[in-house]
């Protein structure tokens, strides 16, 4: 087996399994030269990816959620890390509930954002992930807080990854649970806002959870 044919087979893994079989079979039958076969497969993959962008979903997932929210969630991660550092200082005992709210909010924002990214567009998830990581690298290169570890930028990544993973696995949330979650996040945000612990832009992190509510089927609408 030649290198070019091996590359063609590797490239074909970017296609759905059924289509991969058909395409490789067509190339074998046509006795196409391996390099031409590789170009054909890459051309098909490119067209498939471009066609996905005719929908609004990958745009919203990538540029409306992953990119801007990663900036905001990094800010929230640093906020939580700094609050944690201040917890041990004298006279900060009454700050503990606020700290817990901050941690909870960070986890819920991140999880709901990740869940919606996965739900909006599975096929373009890799672009959304790239768009999420590009601000991370940007901020990592400019991180100048000596008292904090650079890892503190990325506290949001784990719950976000869990959200994406659950969404990709097709985890369904009941309407009541989604609604309770959305109300809880909103209430927490109102509480934090009343204590001047919530940035104005962070209100934009609220929409993913309400999107989950809006797109979750009522049990009576679910197919039998």
């Amino acid at each position, binding site marked *: 087996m030649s290198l070019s044919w091996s590359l063609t087979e590797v490239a074909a893994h970017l296609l759905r399994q*059924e*289509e991969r*079989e*058909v*395409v*490789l*079979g*067509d*190339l*074998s*039958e*046509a006795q196409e030269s391996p390099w031409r076969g590789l*170009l*054909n*497969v890459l*051309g*098909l*993959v*490119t*067209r*498939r990816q471009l*066609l996905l962008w005719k929908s609004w979903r990958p745009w919203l997932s990538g540029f409306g959620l992953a990119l801007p929210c990663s900036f905001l969630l990094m800010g929230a991660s640093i906020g939580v890390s700094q609050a944690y550092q201040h917890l041990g200082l004298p006279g900060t005992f009454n700050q503990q509930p606020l700290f817990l709210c901050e941690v909870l909010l960070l986890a819920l924002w991140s999880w709901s954002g990740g869940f919606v990214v996965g739900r909006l567009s599975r096929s373009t998830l890799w672009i959304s992930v790239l768009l999420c990581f590009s601000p991370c690298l940007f901020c990592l290169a400019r991180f100048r807080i000596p008292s904090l570890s650079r890892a503190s930028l990325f506290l949001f990544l784990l719950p976000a990854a869990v959200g994406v993973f659950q969404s990709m696995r097709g985890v369904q949330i009941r309407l009541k649970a989604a609604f309770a979650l959305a109300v809880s996040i909103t209430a927490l945000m109102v509480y934090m806002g009343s204590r001047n612990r919530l940035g104005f832009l962070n209100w934009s992190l609220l929409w993913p959870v309400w999107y989950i509510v809006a797109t979750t089927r009522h049990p009576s609408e679910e197919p039998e």
Partner: protein
Amino acid sequence: MLGEFEYVLITTAAALGEQAYGAAIREEIARTTGRRCSLGALYTTIDRLETKGLLKTWMGDATPQRGGRAKRMIRVTAKGVQAAKDFYDAVTRVSRGASWVVNRKGRSSV
């Protein structure tokens, strides 16, 4: 109305009948038009036409010639036949009086 390549694809699939699948259609298009079509153009067009209900596809048998891999068989639906007919009628109407059509008629009558 259909696009040019959509018309070529439907017409070729209809001509191949029971033997219409990706590789056979590509080969036939290359033979009749003298132009090779890419797999990307072929399969994205097939998907579009299937979404419009002009084609129906299903997975066919695997053959040793294809390394034991399955074919994607294609059949033109009644709606597809009608769309191709409409396209052909439109091209025929719009071509009336065109110099190349008139000249061809003239030549053929000689």
